[in-house]
């Protein structure tokens, strides 16, 4: 367990610049909260809040899809895997690292959201529920991207992830809402996007739990694939 934590924290640390850049958007929300009349501009604030949520979702795919690639291209992966670290542990570290990176962001967004939207009579408990949905979506999206990146380069991995995550949305639209739950990233994202002051979101904890279970499934699958990958080979 210790190596997994070390690798996760190290990953989040290595991603500190993208995370800090991303946090600038949260800062924008805070800034708007400071300089505008929160009650009158509450729709605009909610819009920025949702936009921030979409960014972190996109970044989770970016984090997940490029993690192994970057480590292999820089050859730093060799130093880590030359220690008593199994392939599964390494991959688990990355999954946890992506989740930590997104969690830091979600926490910051949750705090800022509680303050701005909360002051405009959006239930604070619901802000945090939306953040849990968002984090569950990020963890699942990042893990799917990580799985593809074990055998594809980041560009294709991101493309494949977009297809896999978008498919349930399309199927849900055409065949019935149950299909949306197959890989519920879209479903969870939509909960955040569709929330409003009148109806602050409707997803159930069940969907969050489902996302968690699927994250574990994709994580195990990627660990399985990664165990057979030649990591010392140059990356395309």
């Amino acid at each position, binding site marked *: 367990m210790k190596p997994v934590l070390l690798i996760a924290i190290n990953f989040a640390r290595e991603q500190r610049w993208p995370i800090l850049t991303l946090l600038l958007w949260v800062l924008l929300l805070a800034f708007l909260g400071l300089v505008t009349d929160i009650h009158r501009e509450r729709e605009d604030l909610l819009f920025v809040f949702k936009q921030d949520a979409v960014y972190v979702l996109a970044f989770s795919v970016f984090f997940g899809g490029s993690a192994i690639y970057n480590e292999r291209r820089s050859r730093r992966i060799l130093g880590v895997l030359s220690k008593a670290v199994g392939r599964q542990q390494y991959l688990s570290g990355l999954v946890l690292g992506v989740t930590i990176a997104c969690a830091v962001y979600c926490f910051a967004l949750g705090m800022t959201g509680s303050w701005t939207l909360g002051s405009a009579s959006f239930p604070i408990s619901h802000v945090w529920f939306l953040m849990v949905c968002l984090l569950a979506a990020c963890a699942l999206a990042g893990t799917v991207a990580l799985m593809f990146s074990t055998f594809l380069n980041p560009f294709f991995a991101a493309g494949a992830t977009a297809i896999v995550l978008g498919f349930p949305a399309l199927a849900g639209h055409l065949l019935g809402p149950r299909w949306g739950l197959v890989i519920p990233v879209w479903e969870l994202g939509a909960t955040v996007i569709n929330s409003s002051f009148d109806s602050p979101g409707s997803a159930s904890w069940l969907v969050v739990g489902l996302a968690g279970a699927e994250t574990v499934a994709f994580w195990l699958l990627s660990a399985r694939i990664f165990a057979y990958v*030649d990591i010392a080979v140059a990356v395309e």
Partner: protein
Amino acid sequence: MSFVLEFENVTKEYRSFASKRRLRALDSFSLAVEAGEIFGFLGPNGAGKSTAIHLAMGFMQPTSGNGRLLGESFGDPGARRRVGFLAESVALYHRRAERLVRFYGALNGMGGTQLDKRAREVLEIVGLQDHANRNAGKFSRGMLQRVGLAQAMVNDPELLILDEPTSALDPLARVMVRELLIGARNAGKTIFLSSHLLSEVELICDRVAMLHRGKLARLGRTTDLLQAGGRTEIIVRAIAPSHFEGAAARDGIVSFSVPTHGQRAALEKVWNLGGEVVSVNPVRRSLEEIFLEVTAEPLSPLSKGVQ
């Protein structure tokens, strides 16, 4: 006999993703490294040394064959806990050197004050104690190689696998590494060392293997290989050089070489002629000569077919 590192008939082919071309980097390669020796792993660029090392570390899967590292199959994380590894191009995170060494130690399950102490100790061994708090991202290549060595030694490994560990080091640091390796061997550790510095290998390695185009071309004790010419050089005084074929004379000193098995007869002949023997020595070759000889050997038909 206990082997700490074994390759059994290992073949590794690299396939490129786009084309169907295969490149056989290792070809039915077998080797066994004994406990407590410094083993030199030599061969020209592209011979397959790093490939073999990466297979042993579990970074890649062999195409066929297998091997064992400290008694476990290649890739076993438990075995790697007892191994120290330095890659040929050192790539480390951009952190302060001491933190970095602690990070790698912690990955190996170390911790607490023991790790702190050990991290400082190994940085001192590689001569970086004054730079322990500097960011390794700003280190020179030689300094990086030193940190790399420090992190390889942090867990006090039974087996050190070093891929060209002194390629970027200054002469002083090379001497330091040489003494370090000899010290480690005297403490019962095993060292598997890939290197292009033949004079250094000649000095410290108990055994060497030479790899050529993925195949084992030479293997043996360093002293045996260096004497393997099977000839003895005899230097004498007070006889005419014409008595011995190929003899050279200078200032009354005559030197010639004979096959080692004919050494006794040659000496008797010298005495019978009233000559005086100055010295008798086995003709020593250098690893460089052997290296050149190996690389001049033609390709075997097998490896030709694949390349």
